[in-house]
């Protein structure tokens, strides 16, 4: 038992891999035994992860249940795992989704189901390993190895254009990761003089904190950020996602949306921003703008989709924009909200993909125009779908609301980020880098426009995308010209030496724009609900559709429970998340040379909002309780009052 306790994380990571190997002993063409075995194994996995949760001490902000063994000492590589408040819920999400996915394969996977289960189990090992690794080499290993099973899942069990989608998925992700590999190598080898070569996350954190890498840090952050931005995916690196989602089998989509994308957001916080806080602060304005563009763009594109799965896929782009906004605001409330929202999105979108899978299995089409009036023949399905859709659009009382609200609230009051790089050289490099990114963005967007034109999509989308790309480029990095003082990012950078004003207004503005995404989400999800369930049951093929079977109901009940519980009582989850996330925010802010929060300067504020004058840490749970019951008008008024008032200074 002691051995088990000491190696709980190894067990949870490698049990699926062991299961995949054992699956080889099952007969090849008979799927039920393999499925049953995998289902059992994934349930055991889930139980072990509950055990991990039980062992987890929320108040401890460091790594817990740590395991560390020397692995390749010559290069300072160790096998080390650890869990903290950031990863705990993500690990639980991974282990919880897996049995449900396996349960869905009983009807959705017809051929090679044993191999399907094997790929799923290997994928699970990869994902858990990437979350739990506390050594950069180990992390990268899991991060890359994870691509292999997903590649097979899309490529073998996918739809019509599965090969294209699989290769696109693989190459996009790999190209980003390889630059991250160079960054890892650079970091590790540059810091090896400080007491030997090491890939250890904790050790590198310490070394980086006491080392000034100069402009190199910007490049390193950019390389990490690119890898994660592709994975998230952030606009404009999202183009692989709709293809991969639409072509992937149901289970693959669920895992892709539910967990894989979270690795990107997780990586931003754990690696990119944590290791290179100075550079992070430098890039945060532009990344935040990209995140908000992602929110709006994803939502708008989702609105015009005719294919239900594509709609859900684009909604992911939008929702993950929210998560990124929350992370980047670097404010305890919003960042905790972002972490919670990762879990919420995993649940809601995972369930949505499973629901899409259900009607796809029955009708072999996902075109919205093929459906209508399904509520009459599939009442239970309709109820589940609507609950999940409501949770996804952030209805108060369901899970999506909590996360999104915390993100917006936090981002709105984010203390902002003064520019810490103050020499002209750094500013120049920054401008150069940003313009490079903008160029890439424009190229990607124009390619997208081109393909839209070919596909004869709506003119509005076409014009919108085109105008957007130009506007974005100008807003971001337009060079100063005549009366135009330069883009949002070039302008402050060029006059950087004296400018230490926080980007506070930008955050307030951006979160206000981002809030539009919530409304858009309601629009596209309600469009989908309407097209599926209401109206006349006109299509003959839909007359005899069967409602959810017992097995299918069994899949969705846990989702509904999770959605409601997390919406009504998110406290246990927040308790696990918050201390760690606060520590992350504090570390990043300190590393970047930003001050911690001060008390409000104006007494007036004190009177208006008495609750506000304490530290931000105490905010979230209380506010959520209050706001859950408030009507919308009151909510907005409240937001207005809570305009940022705290003053920030450099140390």
């Amino acid at each position, binding site marked *: 038992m002691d051995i088990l306790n000491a190696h709980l994380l190894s067990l949870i990571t490698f049990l699926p891999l062991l299961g995949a190997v054992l699956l080889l002993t099952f007969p*090849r063409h008979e799927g039920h035994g393999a499925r049953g075995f995998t289902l059992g194994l994934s349930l055991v996995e889930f139980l072990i992860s509950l055990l991990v949760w039980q062992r987890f001490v929320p108040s401890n902000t460091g790594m817990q249940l740590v395991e560390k063994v020397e*692995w*390749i*000492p*010559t*290069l300072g590589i160790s096998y080390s795992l650890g869990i903290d408040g950031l990863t705990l819920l993500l690990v639980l999400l991974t282990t919880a989704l897996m049995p449900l996915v396996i349960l869905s394969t009983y009807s959705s996977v017809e051929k*090679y189901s044993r191999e399907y289960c094997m790929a799923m189990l290997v994928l699970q090992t990869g994902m858990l390993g990437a979350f739990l690794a506390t050594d950069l*080499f180990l992390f*990268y*290993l899991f991060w*890359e*190895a994870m*691509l*292999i099973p997903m*590649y*097979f899942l899309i*490529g*073998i069990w996918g739809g019509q254009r*599965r*090969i294209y989608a*699989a*290769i696109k998925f*693989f*190459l996009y992700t*790999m*190209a980003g990761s*390889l*630059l991250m*590999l*160079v960054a890892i*190598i*650079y970091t*590790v*080898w*540059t810091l*090896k003089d400080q007491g030997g070569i090491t890939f250890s996350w904790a050790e590198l954190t310490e070394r980086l904190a006491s080392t000034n890498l100069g402009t190199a840090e910007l490049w390193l952050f950019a390389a990490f950020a690119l890898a994660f931005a592709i994975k998230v995916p952030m606009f404009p690196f999202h183009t692989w996602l709709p293809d991969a989602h639409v072509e992937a089998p149901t289970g693959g989509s669920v895992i892709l949306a539910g967990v894989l994308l979270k690795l990107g957001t997780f990586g931003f916080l754990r690696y990119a921003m944590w290791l290179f806080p100075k550079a992070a602060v430098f890039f945060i304005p532009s990344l935040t703008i990209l995140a908000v563009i992602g929110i709006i763009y994803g939502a708008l594109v989702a609105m015009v989709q005719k294919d239900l799965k594509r709609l859900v896929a684009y909604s992911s782009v939008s929702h993950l924009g929210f998560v990124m906004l929350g992370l980047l605001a670097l404010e305890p409330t919003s960042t905790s909200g972002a972490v919670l929202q990762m879990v919420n999105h995993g649940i809601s979108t995972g369930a949505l993909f499973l629901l899409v899978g259900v009607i796809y299995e029955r009708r072999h089409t996902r075109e919205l125009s093929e459906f209508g009036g399904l509520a009459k023949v599939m009442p239970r399905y309709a109820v589940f779908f609507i609950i999940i859709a409501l949770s996804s659009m952030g209805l108060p009382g369901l899970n999506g609301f909590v996360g999104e609200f915390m993100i917006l609230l936090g981002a709105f009051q984010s203390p902002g980020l003064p520019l810490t790089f103050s020499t002209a050289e750094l500013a120049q490099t920054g401008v150069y880098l940003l313009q490079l990114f903008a160029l890439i963005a424009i190229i990607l967007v124009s390619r997208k426009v081109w393909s839209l034109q070919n596909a004869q999509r709506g003119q509005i989308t076409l014009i919108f995308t085109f105008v957007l790309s130009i506007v974005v480029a100008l807003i971001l990095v337009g060079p100063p010209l005549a009366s135009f003082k330069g883009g949002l990012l070039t302008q402050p950078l060029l006059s950087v030496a004296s400018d230490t004003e926080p980007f506070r207004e930008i955050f307030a503005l951006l979160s206000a724009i981002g809030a539009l995404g919530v409304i858009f989400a309601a629009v596209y999800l309600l469009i989908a609900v309407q097209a599926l369930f209401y109206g006349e049951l006109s299509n003959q093929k839909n007359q005899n559709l069967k409602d959810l079977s017992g097995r299918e109901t069994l899949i969705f009940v846990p989702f509904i429970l999770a959605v409601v519980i997390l919406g009504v009582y998110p406290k246990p989850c927040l308790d696990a998340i918050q201390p760690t996330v606060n520590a992350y925010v504090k570390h990043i802010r300190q590393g970047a040379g930003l001050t911690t929060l001060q008390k409000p300067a104006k007494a007036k504020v004190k009177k208006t909002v008495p609750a506000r004058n304490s530290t931000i840490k105490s905010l979230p749970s209380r506010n959520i309780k209050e706001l859950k019951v408030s009507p919308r008008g009151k909510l907005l008024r409240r937001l207005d009052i809570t305009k940022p008032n705290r003053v920030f200074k450099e140390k």
Partner: protein
Amino acid sequence: MLNDILAISPITIIAIAAGLILLLTVAGGEKRPAPIQSTHLNLIAILALGWSGYLLWGHSTDAAVFSERVLIDGVFSAFGLISILGALLAILVAIAYLQEHKLAAGEFLGLILLSTVGMLVVIGAGDLLNLFIGIETMSLAIYVLAGYLRDSKLSQEAAMKYFLYGAFASAFALFGIALLYGECGRLTGAASIKYSQLSSAFKTGELGLLGWIGISMILGGFGFKVAAVPFHMWAPDVYEGAPTPATAFMAAGVKAASFAALIRFIDSVILVQGQPSESLIQAFELLAIMTMVVGNFVAIRQTQIKRMLAYSSVAHAGYVFVGLSAWLAQPGHEALSGVAYYLCGYTFMTVGAFAVVIALEHRDKTKANLSIDDLSGHGIAHPFLGLCMSIFMFGLAGIPPSVGFFGKLAMFGAAVDAGRIPLVIIAVLASAVGAYYYLRVIVVMFMQPLNKEAKIIRSPWLQSGLLTCAALTLLVGTLPESYFSMLRSLLKSWL
């Protein structure tokens, strides 16, 4: 003298085994056709290679024997092991091939062993003459192996092409050797082609123009042997035409041996002059970049699997040159051990990939070469073969956990350490391009329907060869510590 002879026993064991195999083949009388299968010959070859490899593995004391003309040291043991491993794996996979295509076994085994002897001489050569003799021994055997399919025009073309190009390359290298010999005489008054004397001559004296011309001619000769761009033109045709086991052997062993000799040459002729100039390093970088870019991009367009693997082998020579550039920029054992590790891993993966090709080249369809599309559906129909091929392809693409990934990490790490960051960025981008064509093989094998009858060669020899390659690719990739630290200590003591 006796000590000298004992010291080179890893070489002589293989030479004796080669002679024995050829004698036993002849002793069978004038049986026609010559025996295509003979277990005892296989065993002799495998045992000899195993014994020699064991001796190299247990290498402890460095020795410079035959008045410093043969160097039995860290480089010899590190790289010799790779060549021997390449030969061993090539023989394992060749047996089934010879049976299937009704080719004489004795000569084939003998030639592979003789070529291995040549490789070991190349790696251990302490003077330029021994180097030349080694290269010729190694190459002559391979010219014959390339043309081993006597009734295939492609094979004949391959042999001819390889021979002609090879002859030119050898002639150039030989002329370069002559120039260095003269240069040494000019500087010291006593002309010599021994590395020890060349080193001492170049350490003190300023190398003249003719000396540099000589060096670049010899480097060109090496460039030909490792198929670096722009000396790679022969590779695709030869790889395609030669019998597949010979191709596997050629891709793995020749590369390892030539790189080892190149390292020794650079060390004793260039590095002794002090830290190499920036322009020299840049020249190596340029070679690396050209080789990676050309290899990877041209490989994308290939339809024949052997040609694709040929260009992939060109690309991998480019990655090794990244390691060599790092070594030039910052001489030390870090970069070199990365290079040795990478070449070893490359041997597993590439021999494995060719072994899969062998398994698919069954007799009734051969002669016309195997295209990538012929693999369609085979991954599903033959899971073992598919699994192995996936391991090799992902490994060659540098995806962890495989020997290809760790090798790249070790080499690129050394290059970053030496401050060659742009080079490393180009290298990783090139390997991203490379991933595309490796993935295509997997796409075809697993994601496309089986369009013909999936007939493959089944043989315990081939299966064990495949299994060995796949297992080593994964094992050495995930647990590299013992092998990697052995290489480091070997090369550390050498430098």
